[in-house]
Structure formats: structure tokens, C-alpha cells
């Protein structure tokens, strides 16, 4: 097991390394470069000045050299300055990573709290009224545009009913825990509704597959209670594929968080990446994207470990 963990850790580090190069190259392809921005700010710069600046910042170097310079600085904790915030990008991103994790974590728990009972209930009574209703709801959930759902929530709960604030993280002059929770409700609900349909479908399918197995018939034949058959025999086995899907889904959750954060003005990583791309803040976009990738890879890693732990049939070699 230990060697398996080490192996997966190394693998994840390699993927992150490769991705960092790809992302670096992509950011380099964004329109303009830092010198163009300086020219915009100061039209007096001559062509020679621009050349000199390019040399000064190493922008005339080939891509691999520039990447190497960035990487050596980054490994020492220097990710450069953010243009939009005039702060080191790490200082900008750390608190926002926390905000995103709060949002994603709440949405994840709420999704599970809805999807597990709904999926199990539907799977145990196939083609019943309940199953059809759950199925239809799940189909609607995966088909609805998440940003539209968020706008509808705002129209209903913020504009018409005025129960919750339409955007932001705190009210001016407030900022206590209750105020923050009040602002968290709509984004969490929006993100949950966008993802829960897919999870219900996975749970239902996995549970139906598990219930078809011979050991379920055996367990029933032994006269075990309905609850015991469902929970310790079917659910435990159904959870194996579900856990994998959930972790793979983390990438979608990070994507979904970007939409939710942008619409609700939640100062998380997704919104930061979006703002950075639109505002030509290269350093911030680069690190934000790396953080999002690392978060997803970490979730995948945890899924693999959980998978190995849940399913004793898997050998680690």
C-alpha cells in the first residue's frame, strides 16, 4: 500500500509538472504581452525602449528558457506580481483558494446528502413512480444551464422574495459568521443543483448493478433484514464506482464553481482566473489555473487511494 501511495504521488507530481509547462505556454499565447501593456500606459516609449525592456524581462528568450526561469523562481516561492491587485499573486490567491474550498465543500456535502438517499431509493424500486420522478429530476438537473439556474435563483430569492443577497460575500459594515453564511446560501444551492443530477444517476446505476449480484440473493436467502442487505451488502459495493466518479467529478465542480463565483461575486479562484484572463493579468491567471489543476489532481489522487482502500481486491504493485 505504501509503495502504491508513493507511486501515485510521484505520478501526480509529474502530471502537474507537465501541466505547468502547457499552461505556461498557453498563457504566453494570450493576446499582447507585458511590454504591450507598458506601451499602452506610456506612449512615449520608443521601439528601442521596448526592445530593451524585452531583454530586461527576458521576453526575447525562447519559451523553454522563459519557463525554466519561471519555474526556478516559482520553486523558491516567487510567482511574480499581480497586475490587477498590485500584490504578490500568492497573497491574492491563498484566501481565494480558501473561499473556493468552502463553496465547493458545502456544495459537495449537500449534493451527497440529496443524491445518496434519492439514488438508493430509486434503485430499490425500479420503474416505480418514485424512480421515474427521480430519473426525470436527474435528467433535468444535468440538462439545465448552470448559469441560467443561478440567474433564476437570483430573480426568485434575491429580487422577488428578497430572502438572500444577490451577490458578494458580506454586507458592508457587517461580516460576522451569520452574514457570511447568509451570502453562502444561494451560491451553494446553485452549485449543488448543477451537479446533483449527475451524481444521482451514478448512485442509482451503481446501486442497481450491486443489487443484481448473486451475493445479494444469498444475503436475502440467509434472512438478513432489508436494511442490512441494503447498507452493508449493496451500498458498500456500490460506493466503489461512486467514489471514483465523485472524485473525477471534482474537475467539473471546480468548473462549476467558476460560473457560480462569477455570477454571485464570490471571491474564489474561479472568478479570479476569469478576471485575470479578461484583465491580461498573466501571473495571476497562470497561478490560478495551476491551483485549479492541482486541486483537481489532488481529488483524483484521493479517489484512487479511497478506491484501493474500499476494494480489497485491488492489488498494489
Amino acid at each position, binding site marked *: 500500500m505504501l509503495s502504491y501511495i508513493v507511486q501515485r504521488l510521484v505520478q501526480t507530481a509529474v502530471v502537474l509538472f507537465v501541466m505547468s509547462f502547457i499552461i505556461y505556454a498557453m498563457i504566453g499565447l*494570450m493576446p499582447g504581452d507585458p511590454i504591450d501593456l507598458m506601451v499602452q500606459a506610456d506612449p512615449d516609449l520608443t521601439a528601442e525602449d521596448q526592445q530593451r525592456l524585452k531583454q530586461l524581462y527576458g521576453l526575447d528568450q525562447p519559451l523553454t528558457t522563459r519557463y525554466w526561469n519561471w519555474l526556478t523562481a516559482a520553486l523558491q516561492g516567487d510567482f511574480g506580481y499581480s497586475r490587477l491587485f498590485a500584490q504578490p499573486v500568492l497573497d491574492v490567491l491563498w484566501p481565494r483558494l480558501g473561499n473556493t474550498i468552502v463553496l465547493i465543500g458545502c456544495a459537495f456535502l449537500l449534493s451527497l446528502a440529496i443524491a445518496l438517499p434519492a439514488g438508493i431509493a430509486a434503485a430499490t424500486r425500479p420503474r416505480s413512480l418514485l424512480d421515474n420522478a427521480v430519473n426525470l429530476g436527474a*435528467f433535468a438537473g444535468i440538462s439545465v*444551464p448552470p448559469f441560467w439556474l443561478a440567474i433564476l435563483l437570483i430573480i426568485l430569492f434575491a429580487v422577488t422574495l428578497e430572502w438572500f443577497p444577490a451577490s458578494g460575500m458580506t454586507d458592508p459594515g457587517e461580516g460576522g459568521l451569520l452574514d457570511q453564511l447568509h451570502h453562502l446560501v444561494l451560491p451553494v444551492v446553485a452549485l449543488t443543483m448543477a451537479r446533483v443530477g449527475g451524481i444521482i444517476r451514478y448512485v442509482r446505476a451503481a446501486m442497481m448493478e450491486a443489487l443484481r449480484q448473486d451475493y445479494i440473493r444469498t444475503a436475502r436467502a440467509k434472512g438478513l433484514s432489508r436494511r442490512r442487505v441494503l447498507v452493508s451488502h449493496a451500498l458498500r459495493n456500490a460506493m466503489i464506482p461512486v467514489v471514483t466518479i465523485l472524485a*473525477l467529478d471534482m474537475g467539473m465542480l471546480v468548473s462549476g464553481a467558476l460560473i457560480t463565483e462569477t455570477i454571485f461575486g464570490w471571491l474564489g479562484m*474561479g472568478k479570479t482566473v476569469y478576471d485575470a484572463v*479578461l484583465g491580461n493579468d498573466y501571473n495571476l491567471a497562470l497561478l490560478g489555473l495551476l491551483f485549479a489543476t492541482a486541486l483537481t489532481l489532488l481529488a483524483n489522487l484521493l479517489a484512487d487511494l479511497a478506491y484501493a482502500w474500499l476494494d480489497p481486491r485491488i492489488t498494489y504493485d
Partner: protein
Amino acid sequence: MIERDPAADTSGDLRAGAAQALDASASPARLLWRRFRGHHLALGSLIVLLLLAVLSFAAPLLEAWTGLSATRVDLMAMNAAPSLTHPLGTDELGRDLLLRLLYGGRVSLTVGLVAAVISAIIGTVIGIAAGYYGGRFDAALMRFTDGVIALPLLPLLIVLAAIDFTKLGLPEGLMTSESASLYRMILLVSLVGWTTVARLVRGATLSLKAREFVTAAQALGAGNARIMWVHLLPNVASPIIVSTTLSIGNIILLESVLSFLGLGIQPPMASWGNMLTNAQELIYANPMLAVWPGLLIFVTVIAFNFLGDGLQDALDPRSGLQR
């Protein structure tokens, strides 16, 4: 606990299947249609989608007949309520909302269909090659596929959407033309959309290549390309068709999200996504502007999902037993 025995639950289907198989006059296509027709939601979805497609692609004709315009700004008729001349009212610039929705439908459906087909082709090539050749080649391709699946799609697409293609040496004319954002959208989505098909096709190819007919073809001297094209491809067609249909809905969602964020289809070209961009600011003035485009996306996407579901049951009768 299961009250009903699953086998008893599906015996009706089995008898129906046997009766169909006995019907000598039925061609495979007719059998397929018969099974599909039984899936009412899928059939209804197909009709809705056909209707939507016809109306959308006839939008220029409707424009010519009614004398209305989807692009003409009319400041005297801003945010007008529904009336006989404007069945759904007008938007914040006085443009007819219904016509703009239909034009948006053209864009969304085009992106969805074209990008889904391109993704399917990429995925099929990668999947068949990985499954057929196996070994290290397979392992490398599948690790790559896993990597693409694991990435945070939307943040990456946002950066990709911002990329300046002239820096890659593409001609400037191509990237500044009016439909540039449409081509760019199709390209981007195809680049990331092929993974599901690739995995499905690889899985199917792995089990197929061990079958006798492949060994027989090899013994008869058929080349690798011929085996993949003539013997394997037709056998993996069903999962490809189903997963491509299901992916159209996802692609339309992705397009609408990117357009909504201002990084996809660029105005003045209308798409359901970019029609919602301004709607958020106009929630108080004209909430219906926010309702219609989203509703159309929702209906289209759910219709494609039902259609894919119905196709799956029709193409693979066994899957119906498992539902």
C-alpha cells in the same frame, strides 16, 4: 428491499423481443425504429428538436416574410412587451426577441452538431488505435486521456478562448472574420470533447479484437487499417452514436457557458449564451430576457439527452433490461 424480481419485471420485454425477431419481414432498421418508437420521451424529443432546427434554420426566411429584423436596433421599441408584431417582445435594444432566439438556435445547434461529430471522429481514431495496438501505445494514450478528463475544463477553456491565434501563425483574416468566434468555439470544444468516445471505443475494441472474426481476417491477410475500418468500426458504431448524441447536449451547455462569460460567440452574432450576458443586468427591467434563452437551452439539451437515452435502448436491447 426489492419487492419485485427483476427477471419477472422484464419478461414482457423478452417476449416482445422474441416476437420481433420472429417477424421475418422486419429489417434491422425497422426493428430499430420499432424499439425507438416505444420510447415516448425520445420520440417526442426528436420531434421537438426537428421543429427547433427547421425554425432556426428558416430564421432568415421568417425575417424576410415578416419584415422584422433580428439585428436592427429600434430605440422606440426597447423592452417592448409581447405583441402581435413581436410575439415575445423585444430586447434592450428593441430587437425582436423571437427572431434573435431563432438565430441563436442556429449557432447553438451548429456548434453542438459539428463539434460533436469532430469529437466523435477524434475519439474513435484514438480509441480504436489504442485498443487494437494495445501495449505501451495503449497505456500512453489512455494516461493522456485520463489526464485530459481530470483537468478543470472551464478554467482551461477560458484561457484557450482568450488565446491569440495569430501568435501561432494562423492568418489574421481567418481569425477576424465574422464567423471566427464560431469556428474557434467548434475547435475548442472538439479539442476537449473526445475523451468519452475514446474510452468507450477502446473498451469495445479490446474485447472485439480477441474474437474469431478478427483472427480470421488476420489469417486471410487483411492489413491493420482494413481490420480496424471494416471489421471493428461497424461493431463499435452503436456506442459511438449513443455517446455522440448525449455529448451534443453537453457541448451546447459548454458553448452557452463560454458565450455567457463573453468568451464564446461574440455579438452581434446571437447565441443563447451571449443573449443571457446582458440579461443579468436587466433582471429588474426585463426579467423575461433572462428566461427565454435559458429555457431554450434547457429544452434542447434535455431533448438530446432523452434522444440519446432512447437510442441506447433501441440500439442495445440488452440495456433496456438493466434499467
